[in-house]
């Protein structure tokens, strides 16, 4: 009948399990689809158990009660993530079972597993079937069955693993999300790895891999340090010894000492050993390694330097999203300047002939760090492309204001009220469209017919809203025709003159209009838009 009677022995078993878990960490991470598929189950379980083992090491327990207390406390303090929290509760139960015992035999281990299960289940009212708890059930039942035959710790561990594996295989049948992903439960697998690691260490198998390739490929992921003072040993030293003259135990015995360093991991297979250690004397470690075999793949990192470099990067402030932002499509550099002066964050160039694509608009949205982005297409043909960006943005809410020209865009942006929500603002802005009458003066590129109007190439066209209302021979006549039809006791007229018009010409127009319409204030802006002589608005 085998039993563990020495504290050193139980420590070794738990440490072996931790090392085994570390090696399987990535594999566990890759299984993680439930409850949140963030691929950190293995890492969380490892860090939780790491904290437990570190607390045990620091407290130097002299009996099983002290060991159990450190195990429970360390796991609780280090608990991370869902599986980590559950693991800490399982360890708490195991600790209760170990309390006051002089040895851990099959019977005590069975009691530990039973209590681990019981306490872990107490902290959840609606346990989901097919998780780590299901696997713990299996492990515990396996132990109980095994104990009926033989009160031997190795025997009990062995049968717990077999029963745990069966329970693990069952998890996809209990939890559909696992079946869909074609995996077993990550936390359950992690738990099984820990128990397997204990068994392998107990029978002297731990950290022994089957092939040289597995040793070379085995990842060693260090725990992250929170501050510089925690780094007691500066140099993270890793190397491979080929054909070592000593076995794993002698290697560990030699290196596992505070005089040399900490975080020792040794991974061995036939004829190869990988060593990882944090030390202040890498030379001494390497001298020893050279004395027991040929050394290759040497890697020595200064962790303090790494820590400082890493934390420098972290200082970079994350971009803070403001509450709202504006993206506007405008034709012409002058109009772009006006838009910016009105508080538009990103301006896209887009005339009648060069409409920006959804992709272009999206790029402009990307450049605006705001929770709500209002997009002003300022053109009937761009509204659809703008609306397609709504589905492309997960982190931002896109509100497309259906403005059909730049005058509407400018008027509606002025009615924006930051006290209101996006829906109310959209309504306000749409209402603002009605308060402004818009016109444009351009020329015909070819002979055509529109709305019963016969238009000859190079004639000057008057556009009101969306329709051509007149064709004239001069620009002045065309502007007059717009005012004839649109003027209705308005107070302000805004004129944006295009790249074919000089400031002097625009000012002359202003004077002419103001002398004819005494009540009207005319404002003149340089729009620099191509194709259109003038954009006009009355309000």
């Amino acid at each position, binding site marked *: 009948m085998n039993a563990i009677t020495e504290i050193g022995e139980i420590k070794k078993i738990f440490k072996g399990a931790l090392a085994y878990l570390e090696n399987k960490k990535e594999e566990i991470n890759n299984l993680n689809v439930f409850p949140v598929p963030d691929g950190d189950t293995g890492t969380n379980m490892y860090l939780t158990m790491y904290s437990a083992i570190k607390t045990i090491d620091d407290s130097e327990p002299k009996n099983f009660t002290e060991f159990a207390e450190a195990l429970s406390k360390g796991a609780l303090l280090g608990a991370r993530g*869902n599986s980590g929290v559950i693991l800490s*509760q399982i360890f*708490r139960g195991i600790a209760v079972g170990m309390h006051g015992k002089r040895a851990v035999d099959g019977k005590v281990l069975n009691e530990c597993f039973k209590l681990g299960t019981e*306490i872990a289940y*107490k*902290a959840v009212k609606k346990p989901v079937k097919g998780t780590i708890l299901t696997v713990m059930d299996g492990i515990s039942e396996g132990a109980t069955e095994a104990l009926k035959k033989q009160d031997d710790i190795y025997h009990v561990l062995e049968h717990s693993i077999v029963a745990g594996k069966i329970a693990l295989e069952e998890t996809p049948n209990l939890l559909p999300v696992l079946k869909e992903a074609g995996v077993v439960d990550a936390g359950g697998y992690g738990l099984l790895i820990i128990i397997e690691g204990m068994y392998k260490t107990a029978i002297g198998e731990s950290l022994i891999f089957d092939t040289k390739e597995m040793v070379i490929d085995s990842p060693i992921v260090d725990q992250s340090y929170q501050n510089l003072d925690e780094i007691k040993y500066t140099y993270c030293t890793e190397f491979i010894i080929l054909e070592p003259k000593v076995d794993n135990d002698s290697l560990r015995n030699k290196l596992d000492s505070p005089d040399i360093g900490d975080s020792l991991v040794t991974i061995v297979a036939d004829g190869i050993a990988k060593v990882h250690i944090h030390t202040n004397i890498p030379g001494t470690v390497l001298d020893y390694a050279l004395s027991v075999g040929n050394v290759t793949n040497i890697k020595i990192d200064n962790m303090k330097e790494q820590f400082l470099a890493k934390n420098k990067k972290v200082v970079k402030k994350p971009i803070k999203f403001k509450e709202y932002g504006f993206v506007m499509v405008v034709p012409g550099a002058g109009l772009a300047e006006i838009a910016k002066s009105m508080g538009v964050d990103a301006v896209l160039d887009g005339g009648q002939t060069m409409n920006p694509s959804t992709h272009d608009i999206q790029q402009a949205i990307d450049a605006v760090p705001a929770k709500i982005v209002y997009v002003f297409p300022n053109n009937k043909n761009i509204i659809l492309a703008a609306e397609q960006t709504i589905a492309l943005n*997960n982190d931002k809410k896109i509100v497309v204001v259906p403005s059909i020209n730049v005058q509407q865009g400018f008027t509606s942006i002025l009615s924006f009220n930051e006290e209101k929500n996006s829906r109310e603002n959209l309504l306000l802005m749409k209402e603002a469209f009605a308060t402004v009458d818009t016109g444009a003066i351009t020329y015909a590129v070819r002979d055509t017919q529109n709305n019963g109007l016969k238009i000859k190439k190079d004639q000057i066209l008057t556009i009101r809203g969306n329709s051509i209302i007149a064709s004239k021979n001069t620009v002045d006549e065309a502007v007059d025709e717009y005012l004839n039809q649109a003027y209705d006791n308005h107070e302000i007229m805004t004129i944006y003159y295009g790249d074919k018009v000089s400031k002097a010409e625009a000012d002359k127009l202003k004077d002419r209009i103001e002398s004819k319409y005494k009540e009207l204030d005319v404002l003149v802006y340089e729009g620099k838009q191509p194709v259109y002589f003038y954009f006009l608005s009355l309000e």
Partner: protein
Amino acid sequence: MVELKLTQEGKIDISENLVSKVAGKAAVECYGVVGMVSKNFKEGIQKFLGKEQYDKGIEVIYKEGLCEINVHVILAYGGKIDAIAQNIMDQVSYAVEHYIPHMEKIVNIYVDDIAIVN
């Protein structure tokens, strides 16, 4: 109502109650949660909420395009509270994102009580 989508053709709104149910179901299944606290405290502390009461203990406030989900829970004594609360936050946030994508939200966890069970 929570405004989910707004286009020229119309809008899609969903009720706060729907958000509560999705969040509540995720919360009661979290490890460490043994109960929820009803959002109007007149009802007192709910020891355990059955299937029909997933939305109890969840408060949803929609304002300025942002959906604030407040989760009021009772945890089991003996677990690491911040880790459990973080898990609840992650799981509720994930579930809501999964069923109601494109909704701007924040998830706040309120640990209102601890149940000591022996």
